[in-house]
């Protein structure tokens, strides 16, 4: 990126969830549902001495994308690590369910999910997990009728059950700052030991799960600079492409074939060499 471009761009990574949703919707079209004034908070956090937040860390906004009716669902990484609780999970699943209802009835809808989360909120444990199952169900139901676009900007990335959600979307857009996985590096280190993975080795972590690596091997579709306008353009373009011929999570023979071609040691660059030739 040139110096003038760097000076004029707005970093998407640095935006909060509300600003991110606004940035992806057409100018002036943002309308938040269940905003802070509705005060639907987590019923479980206060009794664990955690101050709840009025939006429970998820912003749901109607608007348009490229002039077509849309819903932007953005997770706020600054509240409880973007974790999925009962309310935040129900906001995501509920919005996707309504989008599916519209799409099934023939009403155009462009649903975009902005991930920033470590996964299920352990302070709401089983209700977070139940909400996550609802989110998966809703994405699979919705994408039969309309493509679902996902964005991972960073810096938290997208892990846990929400990493599974990212594996279900029709098209996934990432930045270089993004990370995508199932288990976060800290959880792997705690469970399998530092010799399995040193969670403090940031270059190593990004070489395994970072946006550039994920894009290089086809686990993400588009790699976009950390620029709000560029990401909004990429999201719009993703919807204009329409449905993929096949979703990645349906391509069993392809991915099982790839798992027969693995490097001698689990290193990002080695995997790129093996897999880049047939990047999906």
């Amino acid at each position: 990126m040139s110096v003038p471009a760097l000076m004029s761009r707005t970093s998407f990574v640095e935006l909060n969830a509300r600003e991110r949703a606004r940035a992806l919707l057409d100018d002036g079209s943002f309308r938040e549902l269940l905003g802070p004034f509705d005060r639907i908070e987590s019923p479980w956090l206060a009794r664990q001495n955690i101050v709840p937040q009025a939006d429970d860390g998820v912003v749901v906004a109607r608007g348009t994308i490229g002039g077509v009716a849309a819903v932007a669902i953005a997770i706020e990484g600054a509240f409880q690590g973007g974790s999925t609780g009962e309310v935040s999970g129900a906001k995501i699943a509920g919005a996707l369910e309504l989008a599916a209802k519209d799409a099934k009835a023939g009403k155009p809808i462009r649903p975009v999910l902005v991930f920033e989360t470590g996964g299920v909120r352990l302070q709401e444990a089983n209700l977070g997990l139940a909400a996550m199952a609802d989110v998966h169900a809703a994405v699979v139901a919705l994408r039969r009728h309309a493509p679902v676009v996902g964005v991972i900007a960073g810096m938290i990335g997208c892990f846990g059950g929400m990493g599974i959600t990212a594996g279900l979307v029709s098209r996934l857009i990432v930045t270089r700052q993004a990370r995508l996985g199932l288990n976060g590096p800290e959880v792997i280190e705690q469970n399998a030991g530092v010799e399995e993975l040193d969670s403090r080795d940031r270059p190593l972590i990004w070489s395994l799960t970072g946006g550039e690596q994920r894009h290089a091997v086809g686990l993400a579709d588009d790699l976009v600079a950390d620029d709000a306008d560029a990401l909004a353009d990429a999201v719009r373009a993703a919807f204009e492409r329409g449905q993929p011929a096949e979703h990645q999570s349906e391509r069993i023979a392809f991915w099982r074939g790839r798992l027969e071609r693995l490097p001698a040691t689990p290193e990002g660059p080695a995997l790129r060499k093996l897999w880049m030739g047939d990047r999906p």
Partner: protein
Amino acid sequence: MSATMSAALSSRGRTWFEAIAGGAARLDGGPASVLAADVAIGGDTVRVISVVTNPDNRFPRAREGEVGLDEGWGVAARVREVFGPEKRAILAIVDVPSQAYGRAEELYGIHLACAAAADAYASARLAGHPVVSLVVGRALSGAFLAHGYQANRVLALDDPKISIHAMGKQAAARVTKRSVEQLETLGEEILPLAYDVRSFAKLGLVHELIGGVDADAPSAEDAAKVTARIADAIADARSRPRDLSSRLASPEARENRAASIRVREALAAQWG
């Protein structure tokens, strides 16, 4: 947990697969950790799938019954093989301690492998295949999301050793900086934090708890009893909506998932 208890738990997925599948032939192909058979249950030919331990698993982090790369894609394949006009039922036998925690798993896309399994079960359900899961041991975290949680109907044995949660106790204690004892006390006070199956059922997420069977060593009568409950759940799923709305409809859900219901009502009112 004592070694014997751990060993008993880790074999429940296989024990119940054998109890339900009986003499039905094991299907060839797929990893050794994903058992599958087509079993006659209540007039249906049900595809039965269980993820089990395999000490020789090529991925060391998936040897204890975890859902790893081969298991996620293997389960997805077993489910999708059934797709067709007959709308055959699918049964997931669930005893999964966790997803596989490892560096190779992350690099090679375990999130997508788990997505493939969840996708297959959800797509089966949406296409009209009744999908039932039977929790016989552990139903933890991403492993349960991949294998079992997309079912129309979740059945569970009413057994004190069953454990259902977003994360195993030891790991959850480390991540939340609490002791295991503190977690257990909190679970008694705050329902969604509990690990036991009766607390889980109070959230409205279980279609039926099945008691009065030996969960570690089921007799022929136990197997017959559970199979009859599976047949009923399949019949029930066939006659009801294909989504997961039943999980929000029970009296238990109205009480303990009230916020999940309220959020949906408010969203619908403001959707426009």
